[in-house]
């Protein structure tokens, strides 16, 4: 038998996760179970270990999220709990996503199914990389976070509703205020977080620009 670096192979078979569509358009709310990642300064190497970077596509990265942590915990990792195989929200502590700027980290979380991250604070580049994928990273106070982590740990199947319009997180008749800078929040709410679609939308302006470039017009290569 060949050994595999994939933590999935060493895990008792668990029900397959449903694949949510990737974020698109305005992001107003996220709903689903939460997974708990405890600890400050969780770096992008923990989220997706370096050996998974030698790849030609982000496609398989979802299964490798937190690969080494999950391997070590042999099925007991928060993401591997069968009750929350469809987790959509991560509860994290301080400076989450620090270290290497690799885009593979938010890509792997998105492909696992994560659609929002709620934590005490985030590394700047990670925050930006998530924003570019339509994944809001929202801040809560330390006390609220501990509360949320405890709640989700006690009841892994508990459902959370995150409302980006009002910046409130709700579950089981309770609610917690969330924070996000107005700029990125506006980009998410208005659906303008997706740089590619905005660029593509300006095709007429693009043509006009090309039409005034001497090297494309006056002495274009034949």
């Amino acid at each position, binding site marked *: 038998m060949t050994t595999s670096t994939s933590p999935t192979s060493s895990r008792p078979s668990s029900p397959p996760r449903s694949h949510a569509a990737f974020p698109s358009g305005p992001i107003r709310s996220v709903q689903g179970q939460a997974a708990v990642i405890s600890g400050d300064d969780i770096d992008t190497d923990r989220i997706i270990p370096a050996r998974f970077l030698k790849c030609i596509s982000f496609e398989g990265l979802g299964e490798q999220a937190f690969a080494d942590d999950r391997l070590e915990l042999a099925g007991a990792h928060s993401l591997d709990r069968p009750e929350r195989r469809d987790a959509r929200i991560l509860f994290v502590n301080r400076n989450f996503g620090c270290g290497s*700027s690799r885009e593979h980290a938010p890509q792997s979380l998105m492909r696992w199914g994560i659609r929002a991250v709620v934590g005490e604070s985030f590394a700047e580049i990670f925050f930006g990389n998530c924003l570019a994928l339509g994944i809001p990273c929202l801040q809560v106070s330390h006390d609220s976070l501990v509360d949320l982590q405890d709640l989700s740990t006690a009841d892994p199947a508990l459902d959370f509703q995150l409302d980006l319009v009002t910046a409130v997180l709700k579950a089981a008749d309770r609610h917690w205020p969330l924070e996000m800078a107005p700029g990125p929040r506006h980009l998410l709410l208005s659906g303008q977080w997706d740089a590619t679609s905005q660029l593509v939308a300006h095709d007429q302006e*693009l043509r006009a*620009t090309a039409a005034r470039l001497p090297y494309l017009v*006056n002495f274009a290569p034949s």
Partner: protein
Amino acid sequence: MRVSCCESRPAVSRPPFGFRLLGSAEVTVSSGTLYDKVWDLHRVAELPGGATQLFIGLHLIHEVTSPQAFVALRELGLGVRHPERTVATVDHIVPTTSQARPFADPLAETMLATLESHCEEHGIRLHGIGSGRQGIVHVIAPELGLTQPGMTVACGDSHTSTHGAFGAIAFGIGTSQVRDVLAAQSLSIDKLKVRRIWVEGRLPFGVYAKDLILHMIRQLGVKGGVGYAYEFAGPAIEALSMEERMTLCNMAIEGGARCGYVNPDATTFAYLHGRPMAPSRANWERAVAWWQSLASGPEAHFDDEVRFDASALAPTVTWGITPGQGIGIDEAVPTPEQLEPNERPLAEQAYLYMDLTPGAAMAGLPVDVCFIGSCTNGRLSDLRAAAAVARGRTVASGIKAFVVPGSEQVARAAEAEGLDQVFRAAGFEWREPGCSMCLAMNPDRLEGRQISASSSNRNFKGRQGSAVGRTLLMSPAMVAAAAVRGHVTDVRELLLAPPHPEPAQPEPALS
């Protein structure tokens, strides 16, 4: 290291007309510079977050940073907007011993095969192995005449700044921006400030463009250029050949400047004339007329200005773990007391990692591997300079020395002059083109604690393939000198002395 330190060092001085480095709170805006003119011309739209949508005139792609971008494009249901403005080659992962397909490394083979199929699918020109035009992306685009003054050039590789040598605005981008440029021939980007780096004098004998840029990074710091484009200007810059200007702009990014450029002039036009993709016949006159109008004029306003004097430089070599930790070959490794307080923690790390003592001389330090190549110094003039040192001499015993031409065209041109024979006769290996040991994504790598004399651009810990390997950056001529002596050597000694059989054993270290 900030500019305050420059006052105590003779080779840089502040200009007389009163300027200072701008704090981030002060916003002044450059105007009338080449950067401003090219930026304005390529502006497509202003975006909601405050960034500009900038048209990209030339998009260069390679096998490492493009595959995920193509997949993302497919997921979005988009095609390549301007395949005719997109050009591909393969460089980072190619082996340099045998390039027969399939490659021995199955992952390298997969990466190349993936690039081939993406180019095929989208109608993108790929300069593949054996095409006669393959090579390091920053070597082939200039030599094919693809890179031209006044263009915006983007590539998923930070050393894209190289193309600024032609008076293009060229910068490296990340994978999601590669996707954006493929999809929309443009990207969302913020405008940089412009710092003019004015260089007086002429490079002295035995001193090269590599020494000049290493010296600038030493003086201005590896983060000194963050937020800036660097305009290199002045008599010393005007006297540089195109290949020397490429070496200079190539390493602007190592000083923190995302792009560096030189105003186009007669040297630029002479280089471009007759290149396969350069304008020809009637187009040529029109092109030159436009190119001439792009240079920063006397009315240009810069956000900042710094001055250097090239005449005061010596061959330079790095002793530490960032390109900013360089010294003249006749200087000693700085002691903590000689450094600014904020530079000391990194210096302490560097002493340990490099196993060097503060105050020690670099000349005489034994090396294990000598690498001549990379997008910084893998062009014909670089190989000529190294061959001039190697000619009639022999690589010291126990030294592994190899030459990796930057492209197939460089290799053929060097062979036509017999440079390959000069290197081979001296005991260097003559390899096939690629990035090779610049970043060691192929089999060329350091082993264990080996120390290299390298003509590449990064001396970070583990950069050359061994997690504990050590790198000394220097000019190709200096690498050749280290190879024949077996230790770090002032190349001027060899350039002055007639070739003679070198002692097989390293000489005792100079102190």
